[in-house]
């Protein structure tokens, strides 16, 4: 791919689900996220991109929190860049990493407080992926903390967050709703921090179908600033990555798709375990679709068994109904809540769910997270 031809290139298959940006640069954006992944084959440019293509790629990568990957690809000589392009990538990466260390400090303090309150905490996504799945944490950007607690600990953990200055973004729509039905709650702070407190891994039907006790099995530890914390086990990280990649927004999140590859089952035993859990959670369609997208966009070759299963998976009517509320142009919070009814057993619980959802909040905006990334660097100094 050359700078002269890149804007005329074809979009990727299933490109309608690809993050916003010029379709012509989709293969290049995908390459940023996959070029260093095991079992993936992507084409990198052979010369610096011309300005329009660079701008398009840079903005798309930045919006997907891939600045670190682009900066390292340039630094390692995999991605040719002009001096100005290199500087832009380094600056963006430095901002992201400044925010990452600030969030990790917050995480260590929060873990202390949770311990003191007797709360069993699991770290999701960002820091966990950085330390457990990336070759080097320096390759992973994140803009907030995602923490999982048991439903019974939600209120106690919310008090911990509030004691640390957190303010809940939206009030609970109905007393007891969060503990019974919600994905979780979101907290903002005066300082440069946002924490999403999870009860489950998705909202609506897919989240309500997850067997929550499964999430606390086989935890995996990692260390931030000398403080040991726990993440989900690898199988759960794989399933969560698939859920987050496909269900987290109307377009696929490329960092999460990268996590799908990183945490994918490595042998038949792991494949069987992951698929059995996906079946238990009614999430096979999500895992199959995310796997196929990683194959298509990242040139990924998973294990033979996973590849065959994902390629041959036939969606059910329920899969299609549920997925339509999350994926693509038909995505809506109301739709997710509506299909959520199907995942709730019992008339009383259904009535409670419907009543509460009549007053349920909208999904949280994300624009503030970018502003926080910029603020994180503002006072950073070079000695």
């Amino acid at each position: 791919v050359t700078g002269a031809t890149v804007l005329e290139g074809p979009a990727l298959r299933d490109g309608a689900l690809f993050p916003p940006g010029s379709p012509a640069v989709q293969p290049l954006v995908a390459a940023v996220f996959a070029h260093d992944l095991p079992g993936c084959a992507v084409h990198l440019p052979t010369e610096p991109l011309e300005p329009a293509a660079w701008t398009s790629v840079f903005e798309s990568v930045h919006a997907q929190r891939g600045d670190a990957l682009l900066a390292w690809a340039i630094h390692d000589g995999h991605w040719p860049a002009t001096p100005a392009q290199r500087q832009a990538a380094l600056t963006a990466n430095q901002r992201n990493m400044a925010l990452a260390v600030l969030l990790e400090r917050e995480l260590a303090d929060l873990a202390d407080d949770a311990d003191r309150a007797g709360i069993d905490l699991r770290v999701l996504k960002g820091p966990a992926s950085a330390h457990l799945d990336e070759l080097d944490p320096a390759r992973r950007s994140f803009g907030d903390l995602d923490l999982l607690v048991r439903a019974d600990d939600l209120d106690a953990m919310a008090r911990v967050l509030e004691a640390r200055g957190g303010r809940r973004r939206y009030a609970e729509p109905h007393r007891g709703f969060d503990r019974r039905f919600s994905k979780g709650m979101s907290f903002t702070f005066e300082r440069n921090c946002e924490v999403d407190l999870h009860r489950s891994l998705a909202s609506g039907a897919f989240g309500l179908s997850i067997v929550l006790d499964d999430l606390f099995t086989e935890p995996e530890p990692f260390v931030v600033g000398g403080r040991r914390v726990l993440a989900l086990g690898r199988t759960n990280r794989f399933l969560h990555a698939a859920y987050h990649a496909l269900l987290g927004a109307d377009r696929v999140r490329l960092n999460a798709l990268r996590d799908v590859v990183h945490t994918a089952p490595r042998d038949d035993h792991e494949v069987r375990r992951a698929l059995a859990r996906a079946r238990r959670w009614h999430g096979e369609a999500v895992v199959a679709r995310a796997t196929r997208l990683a194959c298509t966009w990242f040139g990924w070759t998973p294990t033979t068994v996973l590849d065959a299963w994902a390629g041959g998976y036939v969606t059910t009517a329920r899969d299609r109904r549920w997925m339509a509320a999350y994926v693509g142009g038909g995505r809506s919070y109301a739709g997710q809540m509506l299909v959520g009814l199907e995942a709730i057993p019992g008339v009383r619980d259904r009535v409670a769910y419907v009543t509460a959802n009549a007053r349920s909040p909208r999904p949280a905006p994300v624009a503030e997270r970018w502003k926080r990334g910029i603020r994180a660097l503002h006072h950073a100094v070079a000695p």
Partner: protein
Amino acid sequence: MSAGPGPTGPVRSWSPTAALQRQDRVFTRRLPDGLLVLDPHSPQPIVVTGPAADVWPLVAAPTTFDDAVRTLAERYAVDAGIVAADLEPVWSELVARSAIGPP
């Protein structure tokens, strides 16, 4: 730690012969052109750029300033006096921020 004059004159709060190492609750990230270091209390991280960033792996174990200077001078084949002058403000900043301290 005893105080003494730094290479450039000002009094410093650490001794070049005192062994120091990384402290807990210090958060770092490698950058393609350096290192980010965030201590337990500062509102923002500092950025250490250039060869001075190589001091961080050295202080994984107790290391004196003088030893760090010697190691980096050998690694980069540069006069120790030049390395000391460049490293001193970085070392001072890491001490001031409690990013490195007594074992």
